[in-house]
């Protein structure tokens, strides 16, 4: 397969950056998008050019590193998939493909397609510790948890922090991510002691990082590779508003 690529190239955070044209041929339709990028980089290195910097790690859809905005969609056109799970057979021979980094004030570009997502780490850190009993680990069955709650908490915990929600949101809001992180603990007994301070602190950090505000558009839910639901955002709103009224 042959493709015309328009890839965002940016030397560093200060460089204004631009889209650069590349044509690539002899691509196997069963290659993943990242493997196609590897082939392109191999060609660039052989020509003595600077290869395209992009984030990647597990290449099996669980790490959330491969942030690429492909043809106007986070992680490309496929539903519930990361870039490494996107295969070249999803495109037509001769297609023009635009590849851009995540665009958000809170995710500054480091180089080319690599953005700094440490804002997410700072939000997680703001959530703080959870209180646990010291001593021997207690029996897993000692705390009764209804199956439905456990399922909902696990669904929220599926979030891999890739940032596709921010990238896809017209407002650059991080609420799907933050709500998943708040929900996974708020739903479980282990998360109860710090439940309200956690909601207040994580939302405060989210606002300070310069993310936008949720206007319930739903693009995040549609683009999320782990299909995190908007109900989590409603739960976060509930947790936060309750916390705002009861915390001293």
């Amino acid at each position, binding site marked *: 397969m042959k493709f015309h690529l*328009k890839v*965002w190239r940016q030397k560093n955070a200060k460089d204004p950056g631009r*889209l650069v044209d590349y044509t690539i041929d002899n691509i196997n339709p069963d290659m993943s998008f990242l493997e196609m990028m590897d082939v392109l980089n191999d060609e660039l290195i052989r020509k003595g050019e600077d290869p395209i910097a992009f984030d990647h790690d597990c290449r099996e859809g669980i790490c959330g590193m491969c942030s690429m*905005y492909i*043809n*106007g*969609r986070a992680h490309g*056109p496929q539903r519930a998939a990361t870039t490494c799970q996107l295969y070249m057979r999803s495109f037509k021979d001769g297609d023009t493909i*635009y590849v*851009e980094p995540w*665009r*958000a*004030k*809170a995710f500054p570009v480091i180089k080319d397609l690599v953005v700094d997502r440490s804002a997410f780490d700072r939000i997680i850190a703001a959530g703080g510790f959870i209180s646990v009993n010291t001593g021997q680990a207690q029996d897993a069955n000692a705390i009764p948890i209804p199956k439905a709650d456990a399922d909902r908490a696990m669904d929220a915990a599926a979030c891999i922090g890739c940032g596709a929600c921010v990238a*896809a949101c*017209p*407002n*650059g*809001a991080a*609420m799907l991510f933050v709500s998943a992180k708040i929900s996974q603990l708020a739903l479980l007994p282990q998360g109860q002691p710090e439940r309200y301070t956690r909601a*207040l602190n994580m*939302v*405060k950090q*989210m*606002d300070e990082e*310069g*993310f*936008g*505000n*949720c*206007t*319930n*558009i*739903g*693009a995040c839910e*549609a*683009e999320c590779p782990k299909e995190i639901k*908007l*109900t989590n*955002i*409603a*739960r*976060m*709103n*509930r*947790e*936060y*508003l309750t916390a*705002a*009224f009861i*915390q*001293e």
Partner: protein
Amino acid sequence: MAQSVIFKSSIGKKAIMAVTGLFLITFLIVHCTINAMIFYNDGGATFTKYAHFMGTNPIIRLMEIVLIAGFLIHIVDGLLLWKQNRDARPVKYAVNNPQANSKWYSRSMGLLGTLILIFLIIHTAHFWIPNRWQQGLTNWENEIDLYARMLEVFQNPWVVLIYVAGCVSLFWHLLHGFKSAFQSLGLNHAKYNRLIEISGIAFSILVPFLFALMPVSIYFGWIK
């Protein structure tokens, strides 16, 4: 604690949009119900009776101030959110395909709100402002004949078109806003989501349709 958290935080601002939005929805119900009295087609007798009550009752006049505050807070808070959201993405995408993951009217609440605001200015200039001006601060009984004014204003086809366009904007704004208000307040439950969604769609169609029918009916002489 509560005040600073509510007014400064992202979620607090959204909650304010939701509360004022729901309050403005209750206003739409009252406004639409009373105006619908023109459909009695009795020369405005029923309509004028209710309009007189609304223009002279002290409790209603007090609520009118709350209503103006509700509009102002909804508008100012909306503009603040719009500005913050625009600033959250300083560099735009060269190629973007948002129609693949969301509805255009959900993404255009600021634009639709602005269209409604323009309509609101024209609309209040036709009826509410001249009426309150003539009443002054003390002479509340000295109202203008709102029914006669309606018959006069809606003879102009351009005015009718502007009113219908205002109602169409309101329809799209409500279609997103109604259910969105519940989500922003965290009122989301598997049992009631469907009910909220259906009520939202029904309300968004019914109220703007009734409003739009008023100038149209007068223009075509169905109501005299």
